[in-house]
């Protein structure tokens, strides 16, 4: 990633960061950004209907995206295509920063983000760009005005608690000018085709696997963000994802499927062909092990050791959510009908965890910080790093969220919540421009007191024995509540048996209060959530005191194939 060329306002800061790159057009020189700014300005000045409030804020985020998609099955190409297009998302607020059309839920659509980017012309013709934006802003203004009036009418009938009365709807901020040159992904389509085909060939002839494919997706976005406050930002957003998919069936009819995703942000980082083939072989071996594994026999409530990727999966499941995790969620104004039907939804109630600010929420041995503004860690470039969020806010290099088990902050956007009124730059958009909400970029979970992996394992076995168990469990990969790789460990001899058919019950944030041990090794795991990039810097293992593991009764056992497999 190129060095930061960030300048805010005055000359002094510009002089201290050095010369701005002139290799590509800066926001001031960029004709597309100029067209966007012109139309935003025209909208701010001219969008006005009689007896209707004016806009107080307009922003537009445009993605110039080039992507490719290649898929192969057993050495044969299924598709190979690439595409370049522009799209964008606009946002019009009417009223003022204190009270506007935001934070209002009047329908099912408002609860979940069903807004998709609008198309944009693929070029820099000023009139064509502004015409597309003109159409979008006109519609958005009218829609915003209608929502604003509806919101006011609901408010007139609602007695808000005192603490909620004065929370602004949207944080006003100083303009930000940030420029990061685009980083187009360079690739040879023919070579990539062969790469994917050869890797997928690994599964040919494998009688455990009834369906498989290897796929690569690569997207390179040049993002432009402009708003009526004067912010003009331009930055790249690249994503490459390798998928290895396999599906097979056990003898008793349980379908086992694995769709492993390996994310990167540069072609320099993707595995070589030999490495990718080896990854496929490993997955094939694991498929065999899972297909032939015995089913879980009895329910278990006891210590469980989470290792490797499973620690990232655990953090993602327990902490990265807006129900009771570290994602701030504003409690909106809602119509009575919505409140009645969706009362249990955090999009209506807000995030319950915010009420625990400055209280212990997890083990005092653990701390969590956001490092979304940090480019490198221990010499390694961080996949989840980003220079500017989707609302033009720069994330901090280090932002403590939980310190020694105590909640001190949450991930926020420009929508203030009950206790958190400032954005720390976590409004995220997908590679294709959809605004998905608040997501982490880089999260680091660390232990104050740590032990070696062998010590952790010993603790696991000792704790199991203490509970009168002849075995304990190690989980190495999770898929939400389902342990994909779960091993029963014999406490007598330490041998491991992979099992299947298990599910974790009642695993929630408070499970992290009872942590028996944290590894002294650190690893980095990368994830994509809805195409939003995240890196987890985590201990390589965590031992939880008590986890419920039971038989998964939702598995559909199918009849075997009637016809034999083709030779």
């Amino acid at each position: 990633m190129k060095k930061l060329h960030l300048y805010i306002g005055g000359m002094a800061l510009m002089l201290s960061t050095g010369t701005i790159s002139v290799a590509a057009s800066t926001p001031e020189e960029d004709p597309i950004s100029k067209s966007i700014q012109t139309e935003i300005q025209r909208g701010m000045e001219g969008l006005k209907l009689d007896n209707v409030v004016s806009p107080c804020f307009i922003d537009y985020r445009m993605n110039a995206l080039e992507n490719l998609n290649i898929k192969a099955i057993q050495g044969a190409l299924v598709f190979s295509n690439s595409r370049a297009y522009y799209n964008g998302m606009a946002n019009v607020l009417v009223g003022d920063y204190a009270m506007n059309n935001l934070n209002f839920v009047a329908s099912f659509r408002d609860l979940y983000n069903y807004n998709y980017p609008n198309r944009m012309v693929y070029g820099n013709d000023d009139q064509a760009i502004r015409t597309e934006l003109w159409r979008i802003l006109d519609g958005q203004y009218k829609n915003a005005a209608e929502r604003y009036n509806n919101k006011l009418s609901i408010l007139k009938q609602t007695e808000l608690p005192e603490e909620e009365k004065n929370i602004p709807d949207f944080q006003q901020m100083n303009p930000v000018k940030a420029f990061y040159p685009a980083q187009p992904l360079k690739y040879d389509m023919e070579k990539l085709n062969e790469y994917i085909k050869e890797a997928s060939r690994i599964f040919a002839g494998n009688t455990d696997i009834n369906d498989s494919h290897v796929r690569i997706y690569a997207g390179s976005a040049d993002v432009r963000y402009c708003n009526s406050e004067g912010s003009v930002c331009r930055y790249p957003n690249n994503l490459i994802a390798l998928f290895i998919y396999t599906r097979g069936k056990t003898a008793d009819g349980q379908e086992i499927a694995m769709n492993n995703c390996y994310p990167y942000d540069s072609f320099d980082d993707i595995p070589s062909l030999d490495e990718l083939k080896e990854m496929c072989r490993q997955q094939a071996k694991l498929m065999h092990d899972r297909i032939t594994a015995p089913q879980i026999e009895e329910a278990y409530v006891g210590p469980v050791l989470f290792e490797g990727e499973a620690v990232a999966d655990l953090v993602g499941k327990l902490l990265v959510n807006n129900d009771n995790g570290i994602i701030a969620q504003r409690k909106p104004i809602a119509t009575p009908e919505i409140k009645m039907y969706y009362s249990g939804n955090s999009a209506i109630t807000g995030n319950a965890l915010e009420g625990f600010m400055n209280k212990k929420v997890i083990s005092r041995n653990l701390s969590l910080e956001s490092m979304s503004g940090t480019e490198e860690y221990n010499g390694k470039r961080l996949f989840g790093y980003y220079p500017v969020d989707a609302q033009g806010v720069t994330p901090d290099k280090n932002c403590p969220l939980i310190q020694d088990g105590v909640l001190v902050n949450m991930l926020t956007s420009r929508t203030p919540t009950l206790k958190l009124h400032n954005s720390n730059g976590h409004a995220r958009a997908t590679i294709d421009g959809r605004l998905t909400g608040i997501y982490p970029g880089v999260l680091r979970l660390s232990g104050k007191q740590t032990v070696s992996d062998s010590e952790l394992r010993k603790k696991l076995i000792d704790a199991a024995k203490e509970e009168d168990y002849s075995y304990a469990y190690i989980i190495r990969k999770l898929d939400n509540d389902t342990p994909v790789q779960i091993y029963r460990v014999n406490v007598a001899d330490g041998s491991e048996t992979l099992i299947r058919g298990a599910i974790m019950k009642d695993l929630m944030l408070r499970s992290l209060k009872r942590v028996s041990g944290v590894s002294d090794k650190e690893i980095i795991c990368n994830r994509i959530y809805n195409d939003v990039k995240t890196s987890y810097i985590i201990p390589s293992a965590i031992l939880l005191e008590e986890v419920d593991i039971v038989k998964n009764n939702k598995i559909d056992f199918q009849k075997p194939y009637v016809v034999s497999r083709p030779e």
Partner: protein
Amino acid sequence: MTKSKFLLFFFFLIGMTTTLHASVSLEEILQKEAKRNLEVLSKAEVPAYYISYRVYETTSFNTGSSFGEIFTPYKNKSRLVQAIVRVGSPERDNTHEIKDNNEDNFFQGNSVEIPIEDSEEAISLQLWDYTDATYKKAVQRFQKVISEASTKVASEDKAPDFSKEEREVYFEKPISDKAFDKQASELTDRIRHYSSLFKENKELTSGESAFQINLLRSYFVDTEGACITQNSLDYRINISAETIADDGMQLPLYKSYYANTFKELPDNKTVEKDIQVVSKMLSDLRKAPVADTYAGPALLQPEASGVLFHEFFGHRLEGARMKQENDAQTFKKKIDEKVLADDMSVYFDPTIHYYKNMPLSGSYVFDDEGVRGQKTDIIKNGILKEFLMSRTPIDEHPKSNGHGRGMIYYTPVTRQSNMIIESSNPKTEKELRQILIDDLKKQNKPYGYLFCEVSGGFTNISRVDANAFYVNPLVVYRIYADGSPDELVRGVNLIGTPLSMFSQIEACGDKHGVFNGYCGAESGSIPVSCVAPAVYVKMIETQKQAKSQNLPPILPRP
């Protein structure tokens, strides 16, 4: 044998071995797997008696443009396969109607993506997995068909569920897509130019143009011996623009050009002229009065009349529907009855690519059930003679005439192809107009309607709702009985019911026009065409068109 000869022989053997293992064609892969599966499934507890595989291999290029700038060029190649497994017997199988339960509609279907390269191992494995799932679903559905036979009244239609047809082997050589890149590049420049011409008119809220190049290579293989490989190549250019009236009514206009070859596409002059016409028409439409509801005589220009026939008549000829108990079966018992004026005839012909030099988009050699498409005379001199048939027979119509069609995601059902309407006693435009005016005077009506351009239509064919149709006109004029100039109006739909509409069609024009478009129904969106003359209708009814309640844009277009 000397060493050198031995080596030569050795390498020859290697070469032979390599040749023996050369790639197998897709047709061979499909045939082998269909046969292999049926051999076992025909002996299962619920035996299968028929398997077919249909593959659509699509290569497409498309791009759009708006006011002189391009959106996004897109090129794609893909292959999708659909498997059909029939269990039971042709007399009663899993496709039999399950009454009152739309969730078990056999026609929903699905498809699976397969490699675009002919890899026997990869494709066979996918087919095997997919066929197994399809067979099990077929068995599950068949159980419901059988149990319903005991709990519901017997179907009125006693025809078997699957017809006996001649099977053929047919092969067309692949069409190369090498020229497409160059053609796409040229078309991109053209549509950029076309959409830029709309910029001049500041009253327009959108001004667009787009093109599509679609090459479809379809394969059909079944266990009765059919093996069909055919191509379909088409080119389309569209222009479209929209304005909005002060009362919020959105007013679009479209023009599309269909061609079987690149050379056949219209030249720039033609399209530029049409753009000027569209642009001016939209400005005129903005100021035009909103028409009120009306019942009375009307003239329909060829394009409008084609869509009218497609909606009120075409869908009611689709044979497989008439087997369904919830279908209105409007014409099922009307064979050999007079339904239209004596001079009128209607036929469907998928085998022709042109009608009087007009390219047609509903053409094919074999339908999606592997039956050769046939010219089918539906109405001869006003008398109803036949229906469009697929391999789902109905009483007294036991054979397919090659009209089983559907998108690859859906099971084929009876659908239309190229519909041609002709009259043996056509009138000139002037004569038709005079007939209208004479009738207006007789009925003491001040004006009648002239429907010119349409965007499409819709019809309902079930018994649950009123069996009505509507056609959505874009350009409509009032023709005054007193000779006043024709007046452009907006905001009406043409509505009606099928049987009464038939009896109102009195005369046809002497010039044909074609509507090339897509028809959407149970088996998805398929290309069709309607070739029709202008028609004079004694009595039509209009209703007000639904309109947007949005205000026009606040700011002027940049």
